[in-house]
């Protein structure tokens, strides 16, 4: 046992504290959610989670979150690459800017994005002229989710890129590899697990986002209504079992995504990529 041999005392106490803290903060509320769903029958549960409006909201939430995470996987990688590989004036400011979506209250993000993308806004106007509706459409949802989940890929990829030795690329070149081959065979495989982890975190975060989306989406049922908002609506109508049922499905999805993230990390470690 670790407690017998360790030179640092207090293993039992810290372990106990950790477990009760996690139980009180995480497990208990989640268990309560499951208990709440049991107040409705299996039939009712299925009916709620498969109703057209709920399914439409799932579709929007998952697809928009997926799109946002994909966009961030590509551009977040680019941002991380530029921040690690190049030196330019204002680099620190840009580096700090990446964290802004974390720090900003989501409602503030929602309002400012809406202002910019509304049909009369800075970006919304030219987009509208092109016939593209940005705010109050699924595209608006994707924009908001991309904004709030931006830091995840950047922050997971950055340290991996920093630890990459330039020598690796020089070695590849001296062995006759072209730039594209070096990128595809040497760089990308090393960074890919980190990109995927960042992607999964972005996706999970975007899936649960509520604050910024409700402003920009317009919240039209069947069209631009995301699942968290639907849960909110059900709660406001005192349909607690219904809200819990929808929530349980989301919880399961989030859990699966976390599981996938951990599997990816385990895979990366086993391959000796993160030593």
């Amino acid at each position, binding site marked *: 046992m670790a407690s017998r041999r360790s030179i640092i005392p207090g293993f039992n106490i810290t372990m106990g504290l950790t477990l009760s803290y996690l139980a009180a903060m995480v497990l208990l509320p989640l268990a309560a959610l499951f208990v709440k769903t049991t107040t409705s029958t299996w039939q009712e549960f299925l009916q709620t989670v498969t109703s057209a409006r709920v399914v439409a909201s799932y579709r929007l939430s998952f697809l928009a979150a997926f799109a946002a995470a994909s966009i961030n996987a590509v551009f977040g990688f680019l941002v991380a690459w530029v921040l690690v590989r190049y030196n330019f004036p204002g680099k620190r400011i840009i580096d700090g800017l990446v964290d802004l979506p974390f720090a900003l209250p989501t409602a503030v993000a929602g309002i400012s994005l809406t202002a910019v993308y509304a049909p009369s806004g800075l970006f919304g106007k030219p987009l509208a002229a092109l016939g593209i509706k940005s705010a109050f459409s699924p595209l608006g949802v994707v924009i908001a989710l991309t904004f709030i989940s931006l830091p995840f890929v950047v922050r997971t990829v950055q340290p991996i890129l920093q630890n990459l030795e330039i020598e690796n690329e*020089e070695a590849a070149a001296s062995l006759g590899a072209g730039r594209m081959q070096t990128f595809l065979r040497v760089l990308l495989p090393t960074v890919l697990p980190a990109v995927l982890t960042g992607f999964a975190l972005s996706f999970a975060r975007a899936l649960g986002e509520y604050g910024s989306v409700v402003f920009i989406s317009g919240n039209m049922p069947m069209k631009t209504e995301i699942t968290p908002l639907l849960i909110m609506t059900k709660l406001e109508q005192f349909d607690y079992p219904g809200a819990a049922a929808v929530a349980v499905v989301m919880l399961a999805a989030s859990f699966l995504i976390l599981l996938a993230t951990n599997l990816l990390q385990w895979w990366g470690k086993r391959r000796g990529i993160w030593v």
Partner: protein
Amino acid sequence: MSIEVRNITKRFGDFAALRDINLQFSTGELVALLGPSGCGKTTLLRIIAGLEFPETGDVLFDGKSAAERTVRQRRVGFVFQHYALFRHMSVFENVAFGLRVRPRKFRPSNAEIRDKVNTLLKLIQMEHLARHYPAQLSGGQRQRVALARALAVEPSVLLLDEPFGALDAKVRLELRRWLRRLHDELHVTSVFVTHDQEEALEVADRVVLMNAGRVEQVGTPEEVYDNPATPFVYTFLGHVNIFRGRVHRGHAQVGAVEIDAPEYTDADNAPAVGYVRPHDVEVFREAGDPLAIPARVVRVQMLGPLVRLELATLSGGDPLEAQLTRKGFQELNARPGETVYVKMANMRVFI
């Protein structure tokens, strides 16, 4: 393939890393670039490889300029100090990399690649570790994989940047002897960088001594050790006793020693420094030789097969170090505090 380095100059900002370097490496040679850190030896190696570009001058492979050729086109095998293995690839895939990235026209078939890689793994005695990842290998094993990976593309030139620098002493010794044997088998023109004089003298056919961006001396290990061209080479290669004094009309008076310095016949009372290797200091019990000077034994140190004597000449001046064999020391039988007589068997004087 022969390499020629012509008038190479390289600056990093205000720092002159290389100043007008001219060197020749003939086909099949194993040459060491030796010098203290910061002397420019790694920069020179990287310029030959095409990983770095000089301000002036040119590198010629077999007489043809390589200035327009990138590292990819130069067909050099480069071995890095910290191995630079691809962490996500097994040992096998690391070695196979250079073959797999060839344009389709020149790419060997999978079976050929497998044969080639297995032959190389046999050469580095690591066939049983083909499926391992670099993280699972020791430093010495990693460096051998790096070498096999460089050899897989059949480079015309092999360049090694401090190949044993990151290894511990014993592995280092084994690996450098192994490298020498390997070179005798393959005969590919090789240049390796090191700051370890022992390594350079043991492994290389020729040694290029560098200091502060300049070449100080080029020669076989015997030549550079026995006939150092400059004071720097004297002090850098092994221990040396230094005596300060003056040279006047071909005659030197340094420390308590007087010797002829025929190369400085026109020197007029110029300040000079005399250099003597510890094993060229002869130590006697009795004052028989007219050139011998008296000295006191300060300390006796047993260094395995050798004995190191710390001496102080009775006339004052710098302390002196002598190196004897165990047998020679037993015959001398000197203890700290006793007086002995020393003679410089081989002294070089530089103004």
